């Protein structure tokens, strides 16, 4: 039984959060390359460790695969990521957690678009560039930034990181001559929040698909697989799905393990297969033209500090509206 787990290296949301950096300002201000620097330099490892990590939903997907292998020990688990070279890091982590093989579909920054702001790649997709905090007033940001790199012919905007469709199409092209009985992916990527790559990949491969899987049982390596998917309002519906199939895994289905030391050591000896995949990139069907920090709401009334004053005003607010007895 072959299981494929799609893993995305994501931009940690807290790494993008303004003011989350240490003394001296935001992390981007200190460390991030700016648009004027031209070709992207990948950040130093310590910075990358801070900025990038395995999408947590994909950790749940990988954990689910590991549990299936515990049940059917002959199963082999492939971990796959799409993106630039730095994605080796999450694949290494996947090997440490217990994946048997790791494949990087390498999309070079140039091909992935060198100058994208953070965007919604999905499981397997990565960002080709670190976002910079952009003030909302930055004039004409899409065009203003286009000087930072040569754009692909015919694109009037700097192409962003891979979209879910591009990621899915790259993976689908790679998988054409492979056989997997089960493909698992996270329900969404924590950064891009699209939650589309799995379904797109399934359809491109012609596989049945269930999303937001919160429970999964396999009684035979040949299937079918019994799944429960989560619906709105916390309801669940059950399905029986023939293999091969693709499932996107919801958080809460399991507790991803920490790599055991023995696995960490073993993973050092394991090779990450790198496949040049820039040529597999399809014509995009949609394009991210602009990313920016959301402007703060003018509606929200902020209580000024210090703390005791905030507390006093908060209580006054509640009393005034009758939620607390005067």
């Amino acid at each position: 039984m072959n299981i494929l787990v799609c893993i995305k290296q994501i931009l940690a949301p807290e790494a993008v959060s303004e003011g989350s950096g240490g003394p001296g300002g935001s992390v981007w201000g200190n460390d991030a390359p700016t648009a004027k620097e031209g070709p992207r330099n990948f950040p130093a490892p310590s910075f990358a460790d801070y900025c990038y990590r395995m999408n947590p939903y994909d950790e749940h997907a990988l954990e689910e695969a590991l549990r299936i292998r515990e049940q059917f020990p002959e199963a082999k688990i492939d971990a796959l990521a799409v993106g630039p070279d730095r994605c080796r890091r999450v694949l290494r982590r996947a090997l440490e957690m217990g994946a048997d093989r790791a494949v990087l579909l390498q999309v070079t920054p140039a091909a992935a678009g060198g100058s994208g702001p953070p965007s919604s790649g999905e499981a397997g997709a990565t960002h080709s560039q670190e976002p910079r905090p952009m003030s909302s007033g930055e004039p004409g940001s899409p065009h203003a930034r286009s000087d930072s790199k040569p754009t692909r012919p015919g694109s009037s905007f700097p192409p962003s990181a891979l979209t879910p469709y591009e990621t899915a199409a790259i993976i689908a092209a790679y998988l054409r001559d492979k056989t997997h009985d089960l493909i698992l992916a996270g329900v969404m990527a924590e950064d891009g929040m699209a939650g589309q790559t799995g379904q797109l990949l399934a359809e491109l491969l012609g596989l049945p698909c269930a999303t937001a899987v919160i429970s999964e049982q396999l009684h035979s390596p040949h299937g079918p697989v019994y799944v429960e998917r989560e619906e709105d309002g916390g309801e669940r519906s059950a399905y029986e799905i023939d293999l091969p199939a693709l499932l996107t895994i919801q958080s809460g289905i399991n507790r991803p393990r920490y790599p055991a030391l023995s696995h960490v050591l073993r993973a050092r000896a394991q090779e990450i297969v790198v496949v040049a995949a820039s040529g597999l990139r399809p014509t995009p069907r949609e394009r991210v033209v602009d990313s920016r920090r959301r402007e703060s709401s003018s509606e929200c009334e902020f209580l000024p500090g210090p703390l005791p004053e905030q507390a006093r005003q908060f209580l006054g607010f509640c009393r005034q509206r009758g939620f607390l007895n005067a």
Partner: protein
Amino acid sequence: MSADVVVIAEASPAGLTPASVKTISFARRLADATGEGLRVLIPGCFPETAPIAAKDSTLTASGGNMTAKAVASVSVGVANNIDVFPPPGREKSNMSEKEGKASISPPAGRGNSTSDVDNENENVARFLERTGGAETILISGESLAAYSAEAWMETLAPLCRDLDPRFLCLPHTSRGWDYGPGLAIRLEAALIGAVDGFRREEADGAFLFRRSILKGQWQQEVRPERWPVVLTVLPEAAAAAGAVSHSDAAPDDTKAQANAAGDTRGETGSGPQGTNLSLSSPRHAPVRTPPATFSSSSPSRTAFYAAPAAPDPRCRPLGKLPAGEAAYDFSTAEVIVAAGQGIGAAENLALIERLAGLFPKAAVGCSRAVCDRGWMEYRRQIGMTGRTVAPPLYIACGISGAMPHLAGMRDSRCIVAVNRDKNAAIFQVAHLGIVADLLAFIPAVLEQTEEEARRAD
């Protein structure tokens, strides 16, 4: 009238879901912007009418579901015309069987009117009244009785190909988001998910769709590179006018929408005037759009479409599961204090409980992240995959305000947010914001109340 914009709505026996109604409202704005028509497809909403075009219509009334007769007779009342819409692209032999027995006709429906049917008339009317006068296609079929992405795509892809819209709007729900991407592949369409607003590019009139990323702190604008484009639409998109964050209007829109949420009915039929309505609405004022003028000027039509049978589904629905643990009842709470990941550790929940304890009718809920860490039970989860609540006062403690959580609480009448990060997305929907560390703020509040109590003694 050509329909540039097609909505695929979702329905329960009670009628169109609120998310669907808001999606229709959003689609109306798109239709206004393109100057073309709007069609609403309602798949799988009439399990009892599955045989509508496939078998004869000797159907009995049951539960809250509609019979073929009820559909037919009500449609006559609501709509001016009924078509039996044959599945496009089906084999002739297949067709003839269906057509031969497609015996629905308005007179027959009316002639057989009984009180049962009348009751069901109301049910069907509930579906149709909220489509705001748009052309409506009711889709039935046994394969749609229980939801599966496979069956929906099998039915919808050929139909959508035939209708050939430019925009396909789906509610961003656990369904729309489930089958939407696959549908986009089948239609070779562009796909943009979790859309919360749109605008036209000034230079070339292109449509740019806005969505949130990075826990709602950032937003991006996505431009479709081909037609059609499949959009999964968030409820707040209904109220967001064409303008997005580049104008000052966006936060207003969000707020107006929150206020209007209790009254989506008014929005449904909003005509072209509706586009700018929320821009001028005063703060916190309820938004009520004028009654629809659309339906009176352009007669609505209702058509039926029989879903093709799905012979060998690879994904077989086994049904809904009984709730393992009863959902927590938030309905009586006047105040909901909700804990997010920002509480940092399970033991800090005690502080949340104590804060809630200050209020006479309070309940404690949480975000998904808290449940995933095992700090609280899933039955208390508020958000898209948990409860949807709208209490008079919602206090969000350490909640970043990612879209799935906002979906479950943004209609609360008053929202107070406490978060260390002043850029947290929760402040976009909050009325009162407190930028502070929870673990310091809540003790400060408790101390303040104690001090006041001492003084009162």
